[in-house]
């Protein structure tokens, strides 16, 4: 019997962990093109979720709301790139770290003022009655998270490998000057990566909200774990974030089951501290340590 419980916890947690993986993937997208990330990514997830909720409450059908929400996220990604990142990168400064944090705070207070401080339910047509698969109960809602995350990551990875534009993105990330000499605009590539990152953040919000509810504070819970995933997996392995994300999600749900829900946040933090202690020179760690 306990093994069934464990399996149940692991499966539910791992599906949830894919959301962390998706947000971490958003970090990877912008890091590849510009060596910068949006530290307000969690707030972007939250604001996009609120906008999507508003659309839903105004009668926009679920399946039409998803692309609209992602479009909003992409637009916000462009806004962040333009206002918080571009100037700092042009001056070769690390001002983008502070700027993106500040933009995140703006999003946070904006959301509090527009939508209030309460957590709100996010309606979805996907049923949450568990179905029985291989001895484990999984809800279609949980499955939709997994399917959504893997589908969008698969789509973007295919785009990067199959299209000339995707190869151009890789060229910019390996050698910006050489890419410019090929007629590839580094600035446009960075804009594209921020738009993609924003769209991905929005989708993460749309997928997770029906399970966790939407509220201004949802950002902080998600972002810490996404950071842990990104630090542990490194900032260039899409496959890595999926694995680490699922692992973190699973340990988290086991911890909260066996140790109590107060311990839910512990595995993410422990993982983060371990990664920084064992691999302090990780690409990501360097950027943070230099500034703080």
């Amino acid at each position: 019997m306990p093994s069934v419980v464990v399996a149940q916890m692991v499966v539910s947690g791992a599906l949830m962990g894919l959301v962390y993986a998706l947000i971490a993937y958003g970090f990877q997208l912008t890091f590849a093109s510009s060596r910068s990330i949006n530290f307000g990514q969690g707030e972007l997830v939250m604001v996009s979720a609120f906008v999507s909720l508003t659309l839903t409450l105004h009668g926009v059908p679920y399946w039409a709301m998803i692309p609209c929400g992602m479009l909003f996220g992409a637009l916000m990604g462009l806004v962040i790139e333009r206002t918080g990142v571009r100037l700092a990168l042009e001056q070769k400064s690390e001002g983008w770290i502070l700027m993106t944090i500040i933009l995140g705070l703006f999003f946070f207070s904006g959301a509090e003022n527009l939508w209030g401080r309460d957590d709100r339910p996010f309606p979805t047509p996907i049923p949450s009655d568990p179905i029985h698969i291989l001895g484990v109960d999984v809800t279609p809602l949980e499955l939709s998270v997994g399917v959504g995350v893997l589908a969008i990551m698969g789509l973007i990875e295919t785009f990067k490998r199959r299209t000339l534009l995707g190869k151009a993105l890789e060229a910019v990330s390996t050698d910006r000057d050489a890419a410019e000499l090929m007629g590839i605009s580094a600035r446009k590539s960075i804009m594209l990566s921020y738009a993609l990152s924003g769209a991905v953040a929005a989708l993460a919000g749309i997928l997770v909200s029906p399970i966790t509810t939407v509220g201004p504070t949802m950002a902080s819970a998600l972002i810490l774990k996404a950071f842990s995933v990104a630090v542990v997996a490194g900032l260039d392995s899409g496959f890595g974030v999926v694995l680490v994300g699922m692992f973190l999600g699973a340990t988290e749900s086991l911890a909260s089951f066996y140790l109590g829900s107060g311990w839910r946040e512990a595995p993410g933090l422990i993982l983060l501290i371990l990664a920084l202690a064992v691999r302090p020179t990780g690409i990501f760690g360097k950027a943070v340590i230099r500034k703080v």
Partner: protein
Amino acid sequence: MLTVQDLHAGYGASEVLHGVDLEVGQGQLVALIGANGAGKTTTLRAVSGLVRPSRGKVLLEGREVQGLEASRVARLGLAHAPEGRRIFPTLSVEDNLLLGAYGRLPILLGYKGRAVASLQRVYDLFPRLGERRRQDGGTLSGGEQQMLAIGRALMADPKIMLLDEPSMGLAPVIIQEVFATIRRLKASGITLLLVEQFAKSALEVADHAYVMERGRVVAQGSPEELKKQERVIEAYLG
């Protein structure tokens, strides 16, 4: 084709170029020679837009291009094969070449079909690249990487090609091969601006040459004329 007037450029507060003038005519092969640190590479970088000139003009077919982003200048028909080759090591040889033609190919799908003829031209010129088209660029030898850098620049179908130190770090035999390639490019009518440390070899292939010293052009002329000038002989041809 390319005119550079009173070009000043540098990195941060230190100015490297103090007023460079030069001219490359249609179909010409012009060589830029000089010692290390004379400003040859910076001249090319300022022409192609990798370095923003602080003063002066760069005219490509009469059009002012100084201060434009390098990607814009590239799309106007200037291909720059930079110092150190700078191929994309994690992309395949063929992808490297396709990116060379980025400005004139569809960016999503169907780009391969549109590039077949140009690819074939490069593979004819460098059969070894054809054999290794699926290999990662980083696995090629230094000489092959130089071929790839030149092939990548050719893919753009450029009006003018800037070639920076194609012989750098290569074995003598390979250097001969590189110069044979440059001769072939010249014979096919491509306009070339070549930066070389091996002044002798450069003067053998060039129509016209400029000698740079400390950020300025100190001598110019046809190779025959330059070979007669004593200070050029002393400094670079010995």
